[in-house]
């Protein structure tokens, strides 16, 4: 886009702000009912009896079942037909089409914020009244260049009582060019699940990662003076020998320091994500993840035991677990 084209694009773009998604509040497809609540609670793994156990609910202070508050938006959502026939045209689809026409074809849902004011009960009809609340200035992110758009939906029941609100934020961006290899093989449609970023393997470190792929954590050892060293390097700093072999670590260790990664979050990594400096029983240190423990319970000095695990489709890594005292 030239600066002039961008200006014209943005002038029209910001006229979408404030537009309603539907000409009038959209009524839920079904009244709030036990069957859908049960399906939702089952999928979410939510065992709260206030949602599904009528007997329990009858004896509770409410005296009846309620719908899970977070389910609020589900009552007004289109069903499977969307997948086959596409979404019916509304204020949002017009905006999405406008973005797509100008090359901002990428979509990424980034945030959902819900606020709850009242409970939905069996038999309630829910009405969704939504607008396009906000469109950001142009932003450059790791995904590409684009705009954040935010919708605000208000849910009311048949008496006009406000049940809750939901703000939904989507990033519409120009996706980076597909890598030429994928395009040539015709496999560009294939969805690839992101994996962790791998270490490049060179002459001095490749052997270590190859052993890791086979489930072993090795520690380089000087053949001349037996000094252990990690990370690997081609010469012994103690005696300058370039002869070396290795020993396999037992992966018994102790946390020397640690951090918890919050922001930015990288695709391919599971959060909460703890990274620690671990002192191994052999005397060298290794940087790795600590797993199987709540982050607030991780402490310096804690004993850990590692094992090499497959952490995603393509990656073998040592992972350390707390040792029961």
């Amino acid at each position: 886009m030239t600066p002039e084209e961008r200006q014209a694009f943005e002038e029209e773009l910001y006229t979408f702000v404030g537009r309603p998604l539907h000409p009038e509040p959209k009524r839920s497809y079904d009244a709030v009912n036990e069957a859908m609540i049960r399906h939702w609670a089952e999928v979410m793994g939510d065992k709260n009896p206030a949602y599904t156990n009528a007997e329990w609910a009858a004896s509770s202070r409410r005296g009846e079942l309620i719908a899970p508050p977070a389910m609020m938006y589900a009552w007004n959502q289109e069903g499977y037909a969307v997948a086959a026939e596409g979404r019916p045209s509304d204020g949002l689809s017009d905006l999405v089409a406008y973005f797509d026409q100008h090359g901002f074809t990428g979509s990424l849902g980034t945030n959902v914020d819900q606020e709850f004011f009242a409970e939905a009960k069996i038999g309630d009809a829910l009405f969704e009244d939504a607008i396009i609340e906000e469109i950001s200035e142009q932003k450059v992110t790791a995904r590409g260049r684009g705009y954040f758009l935010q919708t605000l939906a208000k849910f009311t029941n048949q008496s006009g009582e406000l049940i809750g609100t939901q703000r939904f934020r989507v990033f519409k961006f120009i996706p980076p060019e597909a890598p030429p290899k994928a395009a040539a093989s015709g496999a560009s449609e294939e969805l690839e699940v992101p994996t962790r970023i791998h270490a490049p393997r060179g002459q001095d470190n490749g052997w270590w990662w190859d052993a890791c792929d086979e489930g072993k954590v090795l520690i380089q050892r000087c053949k001349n003076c037996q000094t252990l060293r990690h990370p690997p390097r081609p010469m012994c700093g103690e005696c300058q020998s370039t002869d070396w072999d290795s020993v396999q670590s037992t992966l018994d260790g102790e946390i020397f320091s640690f951090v918890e990664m919050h922001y930015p979050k990288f695709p391919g990594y599971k959060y909460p994500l703890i990274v620690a400096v671990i002192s191994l029983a052999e005397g060298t240190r290794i940087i790795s993840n600590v797993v199987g423990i709540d982050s607030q319970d991780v402490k310096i000095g804690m004993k850990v035991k590692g094992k090499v695990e497959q952490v995603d489709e393509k990656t073998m890594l040592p992972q350390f677990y707390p040792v029961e005292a």
Partner: protein
Amino acid sequence: MSICDKTAIVGIANTEFSKNSGRSELQLAAEATRDALADAGLKPSDVDGMTTFTMDNTDEIELARAVGIGDLRFYSRVPHGGGAATGLIHQAVMAVASGMAECIVCYRSLNGRSGHRYSSGVSGPLLTADAIHWGWYTPYGLMTPASWVAMYSQRYMHLTEQCQEAMFEIAHVQREYAAKNPAALFYEQPFTLDDYENAKRIVSPLKLLDCCLESDGGSAVIITTAERAKDLKHKPVAIKGVGQAAAANMESMTSFYRPEIAAIPSMDIAAREAYQQSGLTPDDIDAAVIYDAFTPIVLWQLESWGFCESYKAPQFVLDGALRSDGRLPTNTHGGQLSEAYIHGVNGIVEAAKLVRGSSVNQPAKHIENVLVTSGVGVPTGGALLGSL
């Protein structure tokens, strides 16, 4: 021979700081250089040397041609990101004091917000020594500057008392300075303890306001002989001492293999060197510009430079030392936490202003000598500036 008082900073300049400069890094470097020369009362043709960061995208000869600088006799680059900041002075001083060059521009410009952002982390398919180094950390998710510094910080917190309170004090004092500095990105934007505590977590134990800005801008300083400096426009800012060091068993940002990691031995060495050259002691230093990519790194440097004992920096800071009326007014421009992040070179500009007496937040007391440092966690350095 000592380099003390052989050379001086005679010209200083920053461009404006922003989130989107709208122009190239070459242009930012050229503007900063032009303005620093004008500040000194020098012409482009007076320049015969240049120093910058290996990380800088602007080629020396491109910059020379853009500004109308003629023949160059000396050019040199210093590695390791922010660790290079006072390394620019180190190189320039050696060249000028030895007669290899007479007038050197030290520059740094970056579109650190609108261009490549350091917070986006390290990764890449290339098989370089650098990529192999990061490869020991990226598979586990440890791949941003905040994460590497947080690892040292957690350990430091474990060994000290009131570290968290001191981190707030550093962030807060600097924001108070920035709020009164019209050039700062956070001009007129103070924050409260509540804001600090409720800010987004970046990498525990660091939250948003413990982390520096990402910004666009350029900074330059001109260094020449002390003799020539006396005839120029401003009071010369003498270089009393400058140290540069990479301590044993070093990795860039990830020196996690030393017996204790809650310390920065490279800066201890740089401090010793600079004090030795200058004959100054910590008691002679009146103010400081301490590299502040993240709040905890200020604490460690206070210890390296002998303003307090090891692991006692939190108490030193909580005594109000960094404030305008404190023992060591520090980062009076707002620092990289709150003025702008120009890899510490805007800090050299501020340190020179403190010696000149022209800081926007000039402390009431007389300032004779000022410390300015480079980024830590990497090979680093620091310089002692003072009156000639």
